[in-house]
């Protein structure tokens, strides 16, 4: 499927100014090669432009629309595959200069830290508020720490950090690159002999995958602190029992699986956001759309990949530890 998509997609869509339009050119070229079209065929298509369109039946229109949607979808997957492939090739052949990378590290890491810490704290406290009633009813108040911390470390920490990053950084990346596309700055890079993917995408990708684990750890830590604060200080749960059960409920594997997943989330944010920016439609509306779709697509993909990775990690966990861990 991905191979088919990659064949349908142009190898140079993202480095050319006309993006999708140029991909169309390439697709035309493929067809022209396959069927040995002569120049007359272009004239034929020109004629068809001038001639009035024949009325189509509702069924034909329906099939056309669905067919176009499917082809567009497959082409986008192929485009993104080629885009990622080009980026990975640069990543392993020549890294961008330190100055370019450090700016992105600062944008992605340092500037995201406060917001990730703050949201992590609140999520920890919200978990305590929501779980307390049920645990109190069955007299297991002191086990609250195990549930809060386990949920945070395995799921909420990584997903929350990734969501904040997708919103704060992903949207900005798509908007910046989209504006660069619209104002021909990406064309200028190409015209001056620089590769836009090497210069613009690789540093952003590096910043996302290398810094998201730290942000995840920060979200985990602040969530644990928030949960502890609300459970022990506000709700009055016994401090020693809370901590003791918290330690029992969270294993090193849980922490590892959360951080491991976050690297995939970082990759998704960087690739989707940069891709949307590179394929931005003209005008202010195009830039806005690129930023919005970058966040929406990243978020949906993060959740889908999270489910898949959780299943995989659980399988690995139960293969290593057949008896599992029971904290209740």
């Amino acid at each position, binding site marked *: 499927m991905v191979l088919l998509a990659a064949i349908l997609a142009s190898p140079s869509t993202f480095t*050319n100014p006309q993006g999708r339009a140029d991909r169309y050119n390439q697709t*035309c070229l493929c067809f022209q090669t396959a069927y040995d079209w002569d120049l007359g065929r*272009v*004239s034929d298509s020109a*004629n068809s*432009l001038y001639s009035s369109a024949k009325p189509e039946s509702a069924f034909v229109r329906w099939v056309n629309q669905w067919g176009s949607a499917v082809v567009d979808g497959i082409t986008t997957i192929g485009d993104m595959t080629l885009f990622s492939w080009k980026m990975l090739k640069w990543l392993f052949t020549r890294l961008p200069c330190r100055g370019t990378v450090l700016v992105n590290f600062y944008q992605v890491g340092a500037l995201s830290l406060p917001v990730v810490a703050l949201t992590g704290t609140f999520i920890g406290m919200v978990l305590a508020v929501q779980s307390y009633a049920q645990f109190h009813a069955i007299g297991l108040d002191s086990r609250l720490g195990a549930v809060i911390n386990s949920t945070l470390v395995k799921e909420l920490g990584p997903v929350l950090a990734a969501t904040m990053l997708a919103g704060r950084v992903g949207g900005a990346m798509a908007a910046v690159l989209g504006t660069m596309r619209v104002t021909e700055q990406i064309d200028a890079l190409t015209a001056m002999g620089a590769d836009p993917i090497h210069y613009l995408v690789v540093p952003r990708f590096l910043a996302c995958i290398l810094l998201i684990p730290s942000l995840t750890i920060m979200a985990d830590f602040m969530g644990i602190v928030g949960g502890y604060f609300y459970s022990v200080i506000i709700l009055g749960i016994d401090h020693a029992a809370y901590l003791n059960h918290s330690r029992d409920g969270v294993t090193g594997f849980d922490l590892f699986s959360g951080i491991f997943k976050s690297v995939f989330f970082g990759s998704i944010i960087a690739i989707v956001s940069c891709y949307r920016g590179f394929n931005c439609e003209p005008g202010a509306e195009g830039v806005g759309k690129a930023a919005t779709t970058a966040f929406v697509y990243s978020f949906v993909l993060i959740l889908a990949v999270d489910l898949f990775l959780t299943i995989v990690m659980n399988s690995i966990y139960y293969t290593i530890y057949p008896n599992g861990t029971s904290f209740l």
Partner: protein
Amino acid sequence: MNEVSGQAEEDDIDNDVDVDDDITAFEDSNRDVAAAQQTSDEQPLIEARNVSVVFDDQIVLQDIELQITRGQTVAIIGESGCGKTVFMKTLVGLVNPTQGEIYFDGEGLHHMGYAELTQTRRRFGFVFQNAALFDSMSVYENIAFPLRQSKVVSETVVEESVMQHLAEVGLPKNVAYKRPAELSGGMRKRVGLARALILKPEVVVYDEPTTGLDPIMSDVINELILDTRRRYPVTSVVVTHDMHTARKVADRVLMFYPRSRLDEDESQVLFDGPPSALEHAEDRRVRQFVRGEAGERLTELAHGLSG
């Protein structure tokens, strides 16, 4: 103390000599390349063979044949949407033609690998319509960018070169440390020109160089285009719909016409000749464009209002 300062002065002089040597070596190498290429004067520097470009279902360019010889200044004129900018981007390999080929110095761009195409692009200087300066960089960094990308010179040479090119386009030194957003439209265009010229390109391509500028600044840009031609042995392609620019800077003018408004057998290039022949062109549409007459467009307007 004197001995120390004397030694320091000697070191400074040595450094200056080294920098001068670096610049001379850099410029010599460019001149050598240019000289080597001048031996093949008989073949056109840029050649478009049967070029067609189609976007989605829209034919932008069809069957364009064009040869530009070394040293020429060609103005491509035509109304908005006729494909001038697309053609120019096709010439430098920023847009791939749907059909046909572009040859630069006898080499087909379509035959080139990525590295070769990148090297070839460095032989072009591209002045974009809105300058396309990088917002995140200062003017200095913008102008230095192509040099730093080419990685052939030291930082001292970069600084010398940036300041020299800034002076050549008539901008004061203090502009170097401003952001592009702080500059006026005319200054941005001049910075764009300085950036395009810093690698001493063989071809300079101008996309609407005077659009959006006042008449005086437009004339300043026109003079800079002429000055560039006098200063360096460049071939220039100027895409414009400003007839004053076309007449002033070009020694050959091509007029494009939108494909959708032509009959099937008509060429998209309505005029190819010297600027002096524009007024007396056989084709009515060329004369209308040159004189700025709406012609049949008024009929369209009337249809639109009545419909």
